[in-house]
C-alpha cells in the first residue's frame, strides 16, 4: 500500500473523528445550557407545530435573510441548496448499490456545482465591495470561503474537465467504512479536493460553521410564544425560588 493511501486514510479517520466528536460536544453544550427566559422574536408561533414550521421556513427558505437582504439571500441560498444537492450526489461513493433517489438526482447534483460556485463568488465579492461587510470580515472569513471554493473548483474539474478513477475512489472510501485501507488514485485534483474536505471537517466544530447546529437551538426562533399559559423556569432559577420560603 502506498504511503499516500495510508496517510489519506488516517487523515480521514482523524478528521471524521474530530468532526463527529466536536459537533456532538457542541450540540450537547447547546442542549444542556438552559434558556431561562422566553425570548422568541415576536410575532411568534403559539404552538409547537407552528415553531416547526417557522424553523422549516428558516432552514429551507432562509426566510429571515430574505426579509433582510435580497443579494445575501440569493447567493447564500443558492450556495447552500446547491451544496446539499452535491452532498447528496456524493452518497453514491459510499453506497452499494447506489440508492435509487441518489441516482435520480445525479444529473442535478452534477450541475449544482455551478450554483455553489456562483454563490460563493457572490458572497466573497460582497466581502470586498460592500463597505459594511468589508468592515466585519476577518481573515478567517476569507479563509473559509477560500476553502469552500477550493473544494468546489477541484471537485468540478474532476466532474467536468479531467475525470479521476472514480471506481477506485469509491473503493477507497468503502474500504475505510469497514476498516480496510485500499489504494487511492494519485490524481492531484482528487488529493487536493480530499485534503480540503478533511480540513473543513476538522475546523467545523471550532468555527462559524457551527451556525448549522446553532440555528436549531436559537431561542429567538425555536421557542413557543406561551409565556402566560405555561410557567417556564430554568433549574438554576428554580433554585432561587426554592431558597425563598413562603411567598
Amino acid at each position, binding site marked *: 500500500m502506498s504511503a499516500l493511501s495510508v496517510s489519506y486514510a488516517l487523515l480521514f479517520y482523524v478528521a471524521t473523528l474530530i468532526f463527529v466528536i466536536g459537533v456532538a460536544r457542541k450540540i450537547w453544550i447547546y442542549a444542556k445550557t438552559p434558556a*431561562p427566559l422566553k425570548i422568541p*422574536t415576536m410575532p411568534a408561533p403559539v404552538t409547537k407545530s407552528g415553531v416547526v414550521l417557522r424553523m422549516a421556513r428558516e432552514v429551507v427558505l432562509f426566510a*429571515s*435573510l430574505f426579509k433582510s437582504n435580497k443579494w445575501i439571500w440569493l447567493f447564500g441560498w443558492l450556495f447552500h441548496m446547491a451544496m446539499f444537492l452535491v452532498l447528496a450526489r456524493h452518497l453514491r461513493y459510499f453506497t452499494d448499490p447506489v440508492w435509487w433517489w441518489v441516482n435520480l438526482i445525479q444529473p442535478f447534483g452534477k450541475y449544482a456545482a455551478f450554483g455553489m460556485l456562483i454563490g460563493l463568488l457572490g458572497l466573497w465579492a460582497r466581502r470586498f465591495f460592500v463597505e459594511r461587510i468589508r468592515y466585519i470580515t476577518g481573515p478567517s472569513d476569507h479563509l473559509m470561503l477560500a476553502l469552500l471554493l477550493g473544494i468546489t473548483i477541484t471537485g468540478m474539474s474532476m466532474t467536468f474537465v479531467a475525470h479521476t478513477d472514480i471506481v477506485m475512489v469509491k473503493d477507497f472510501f468503502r474500504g475505510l467504512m469497514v476498516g480496510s485501507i485500499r489504494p487511492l488514485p494519485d490524481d492531484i485534483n482528487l488529493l487536493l479536493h480530499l485534503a480540503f474536505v478533511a480540513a473543513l471537517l476538522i475546523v467545523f466544530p471550532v468555527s462559524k460553521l457551527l451556525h448549522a447546529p*446553532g440555528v436549531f437551538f436559537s431561542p429567538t426562533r425555536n421557542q413557543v410564544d406561551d409565556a402566560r399559559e405555561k410557567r417556564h423556569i430554568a433549574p438554576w432559577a428554580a433554585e432561587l425560588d426554592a431558597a425563598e420560603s413562603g411567598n
Partner: protein
Amino acid sequence: MADFDIPELKEIPEIPPLKEGAMAHSKPFESKPDFQEPLGFPGELVDNWEQVAVEKLGELKGKFRSLQVFLDSCVKCGACTDKCHYFLGTADPKNMPVARQDLLRKVYRRYYTFAGKFFPKLVGAVDMTKDVLDEWYSYFHQCSQCRRCSVYCPYGIDTAEISMAAREIMDAVGLGQKYCNEIIAKVHKIGNNLGLPEPALADTLEGLEEEVKDDTGVDIKFPLDVKGAEILLVTPSADFFAEPHVDGLIGYAKVFHETGASWTLSSYASEAANFGMFIGSYENMRRISRRIRKAAKELGVKRIIFGECGHAWRVAYSFLNTLAGPWDFLDPNYPVPQHICEYTWEAIQQGKLKFDPSENDHMTLTFHDSCNVARASRMGDKPGGQLEIPRNILKTVCNNYVDMPENTIGEATFCCGGGGGLLTDDLMELRVKGAMPRMAAYKSVVDDYGVTNLAAICAICKTQFAKVLPYYGFTMDQIVSLHQLVGDALILSDAPGDDDDTDDEE
C-alpha cells in the same frame, strides 16, 4: 440647540458610509458605590477585574443558551449591518449589530474557543484589557435592546442578549451605569423609579381626582392600596407625573370607571418598569417583579393589568410568570398579566364603551410600535395581536389615522432611540441621532398625509419623543398617550349635562 450635528431627515432606509469612531466618545455617567451595592454589585472596579470579567462571561454562557449559541453562530453575513437605528443615525460601524456583538465575541473567542486560544489573529480574538472594557462601556450603552437586528438575522441572533450579558459583566466588575443602577436601587428601596413614597403618591392621585372632576364633572377614582379590589393596575411611575403620560393614566381610570371595574394601584408595587432587564440581571429583574407578587397577595386582587410601557410589558408578558409566578392565587379566567389595551379592546368589543371620536378630530394620528411590545411580547390570543389591538383601539377612538411606511412599523419598527436604559441626558447626542429613522418615517406621513400627532404605549418612548421631536423641527406635544385619546373620546354615561363640553374643539 445642540453641540453635535443633528442628522438630516431623508428618505428611508438610507445607509450611511461608515464613519469610524464617530461615537467612540459617547458614554453614560458611571455608577457610584451607593447605587451599586444595593444591587449586589461591587462599588467600584475590582482589582482583578480582568479575571472576574472572563469568569463572569463563562458563568453567563453556561446559564443562558442564547448567549452561547449566538456567540458561536454568527457567520458575518452582514444582513444585520444596516438594521440598527443607532448605526443609521450615527454611521459608526461599531453600531452595526454584528460589530457590537464582536466586541464581546472577540473576548469569548480568546478565552473559550480553540481557534481563539491558538490562532487569535486569524479569528480576531483579543485579551480582556482596559481598552476593551472601555469600548464595551461605550458601545454596549449604544444599544437600546430593541431586537430589530434579531428579526433580520438568519439565526435570530439578538444583539440585545449580548448587550445585556456585557452590562451584567461590567456590573460584576464594578463598572455600572449610573442611570439604570440608581433607579433600580430606588425601586428596591421605595417601590418605584421616581423614589416616590406612599404619601406623595396618595397626594398626587387625589390631585388627579380633583382635576378630572373639574374637567368632566364626574367622580372618577384613582384608588390606592384598596384591599379586596378585583384588579391591580401596575403602571410606569412616569404616568403619575409626566406629560403626556398622565393623560394616559386618566384614560385608564375613565375606562375602569365606565366598565364599573373595581381596581387599585399599589404603593408597594408602584412601578411597572423593570430596569433589571436593561442591565441583564436576572436576579434584580426577579426581585423587582416579586414586589408585584407580594402586592397582589396582600391586596387580595384577582387580576393584574399593566399600563402603557414597552419594556415593562415585555417583562410582564414574557417573564412575569417565570420570575414571580405561578399565579395560581389569581382568577384563572384571565391571562396573567393583561395589558390595559387588551382590557380596553375587550370592553369595546363587548359594547361597554361608547365614544365620540370627533373629540379627536383636531388630530391626524399615527402609531409608533414600541420595540418591546412589537418584537418581544403579545396581546390577545393571536400572534401579532400586539400590533393590531392598539391600532384597532385608535381607529375606534379617532377618525383620522394613518400608518407610517411598512418597513418602519410592526416587527420592523424603529426604536424611539431612548430605550434599553439609555433615556438619560448624558446620552443626548445618541438619543437624538438614534431617533433619526423614526423621525424620518414620521416626517414622511406628516408631509404626505398631514399627520399631526404620534401615539405611543410606552413611557420611555413618550419621554424620548417629547425630548427629541423639537430637534427635528416638530413640537414636543405631538407625542400623545394612546389612552389619552381613549379618555378624550370616551362618553361618560354619568356625565352631567354634557352639551357644552363635546364641541369645544371646533
